[in-house]
């Protein structure tokens, strides 16, 4: 009997080792570019020019970080990324929240309150999201101009919400199809209406998918360059435009260390969101809800 215990335990141990081994191995693949970026950002330009891109910095220093944050040129002013940070935050937060919320409600309607043609509608929305964004630039510019919100934060938020909706709706719909109908039925009997059911029954079960949706939207909107550059006004440009300006020079000198530092700085809020939101990947939300 002791044997049996130990065979299971060793078997388990081997299994666990393999699992952890694999997970860590894959981590290397994911971390490799980050490694390159971080080491590069800590090197001096001369060391980079020497060409040892994968080697550790010989004399690590944070100069590039400082420059990226506060003195790199992103246009005629050379004040680094700092100022653009808040520009981004100011439209990313509302855009993400709105598109997630609307997506959740849409998903809720499309699964729990289906009506004739609702699936068709969903299908149309899905196909529509394959429209290349480059195509919408000009007509959208004209539409926003006509609406009087061209080159304003409102306009930018609007654009991001509109083109984010298809996917947030998709996420929520496909998550909600696995929630038993009975819960909604029970709530209807309890007298709850449309919104109440959503708020009290459905939302509390949505934690993982809200996380997914926020991760997606936040990443998309935060990292978006095209809409940001086209639909923001000159002095309210998002951080990606600044990053692009800093990095993407065609005939100027390339400062790789600053570029890398800037890229990492620009990604910090997104990383922060991942870490914070990740906690809500909770297990077994509907456990024990229904029998059968």
């Amino acid at each position, binding site marked *: 009997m002791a044997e049996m215990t130990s065979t299971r335990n060793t078997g388990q141990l081997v299994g666990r080792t393999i699992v952890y081994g694999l997970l860590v191995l894959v981590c290397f693949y994911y971390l490799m570019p980050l490694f390159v970026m971080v080491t590069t950002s800590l090197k001096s330009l001369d060391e980079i020019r020497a060409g040892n891109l994968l080697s550790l910095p010989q004399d690590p220093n944070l100069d590039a970080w400082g420059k990226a944050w506060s003195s790199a040129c992103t246009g005629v002013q050379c004040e680094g990324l700092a100022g653009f940070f808040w520009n981004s935050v100011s439209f990313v937060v509302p855009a993400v929240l709105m598109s997630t919320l609307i997506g959740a409600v849409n998903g809720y309607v499309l699964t729990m309150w289906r009506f004739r043609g609702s699936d068709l509608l969903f299908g149309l929305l899905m196909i529509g999201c394959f429209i290349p964004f480059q195509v919408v630039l000009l007509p959208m510019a004209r539409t926003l101009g006509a609406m009087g919100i061209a080159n304003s934060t409102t306009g930018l938020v609007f654009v991001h919400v509109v083109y984010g909706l298809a996917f947030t709706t998709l996420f929520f719909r496909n998550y909600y199809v696995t929630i038993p109908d009975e819960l909604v039925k029970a709530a209807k009997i309890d007298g709850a209406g449309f919104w109440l059911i959503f708020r009290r029954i459905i939302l509390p079960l949505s934690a993982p998918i809200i996380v997914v949706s926020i991760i997606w939207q936040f990443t998309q909107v935060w990292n978006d360059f095209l809409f940001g550059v086209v639909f923001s006004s000159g002095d309210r440009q998002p951080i990606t435009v600044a990053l692009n300006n800093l990095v993407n020079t065609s005939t100027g000198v390339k400062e790789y260390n600053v570029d890398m530092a800037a890229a990492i700085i620009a990604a910090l809020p997104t990383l922060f969101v991942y870490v914070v939101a990740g906690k809500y990947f909770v297990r077994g939300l509907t456990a*024990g809800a229904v*029998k059968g």
Partner: protein
Amino acid sequence: MGALSIRDVRKSYQGTEILKGINLEIEKGEFLILVGPSGCGKSTLLSMIAGLDTVSSGEIRIGDRVVNNLSPKDRDIAMVFQSYALYPSMTVRENISFGLEIRKVGKAEQQKIVERVAQTLQIGHLLDRKPSQLSGGQRQRVAMGRAIARDPSLFLFDEPLSNLDAKLRVEMRVEIKQLHQRMGTTIVYVTHDQIEAMTLGDKIAVMKAGEVQQFGTPQQIYDNPANLFVAGFMGSPSMNFIPARVEPMGGGHGVRLESGANSYVFPAVSANGKLKAWEGKEVVFGIRPEQITHKVESSLGAEYIQTASMPISLTEPTGPDTLVLVPVNGREVTCRVHPAHARAPGEKMDLMFDLSKAVFFDPASELRIA
């Protein structure tokens, strides 16, 4: 005007008709029991009454309103789902008080009601748990609690006690009965428990394959089943159906029964002469197990009491009674005898048939003859 009336209600899923024209009508304060074999459409009917499924055709009224198009929340009903459907993210307390909260019952009042319900259902110690931390029976009681916390004009119960032990079930039955008497609410109740059906219901509707077979008081259903199906379905163990030839006997008629080497003709006293047309033909003679018992001398004498000595093929003790199976006309007939009087298989036993409630069916149409 009834409290609930269901008129020619039909329901189809993808072309197959699940409910084939249901007609039922009950008065305010009545307690309707729905019974029927598994899959006959009871839950579907309930969910249409609740407004959770659309009616394919027909009309449902609650009080004097046609509610076909009324949303569930406006029908003023409470329901226990067969599948419980507890809110997984809420505690037991929140599950129970949710409906109250929505109906804007004050906090203190809610608290009181939850306490009362929890006590009734003996789940007071579970109030702060999530459904996933409960046993099956506890979940079922929470589902029940969610319904009875409210004070609707119509209760719908779908097998609300099926996962409870006998003792608790008796207690709950009593509670439901008292609830019904106290509040006078109309109730529709699905159950598979014969005793629940007989003791709780004012009316019983026996369904089969989407149709109502018989609708009446428990006693009517039990004593005067409309057809073979109802007779066989109600009562446990089930009624014995013995194919038997009708023979003239005395002034009336009797049925011939053969068991082992013996042959008897039992008078069809309960038939009131309706067997005349069937003379010489075969009918189905129905008699319940409890009407075939061990011989009790004091009961003998009446014409409707007949005795016979029959060989036992099987015995089955159930505690309070022992079921004895004897062959009659090629069928195994179940008799319910006192354990002390039961003989062993292979032996013969003197049995007493009480024919006062025997029934007769047309073997072809399965309808009741007498």
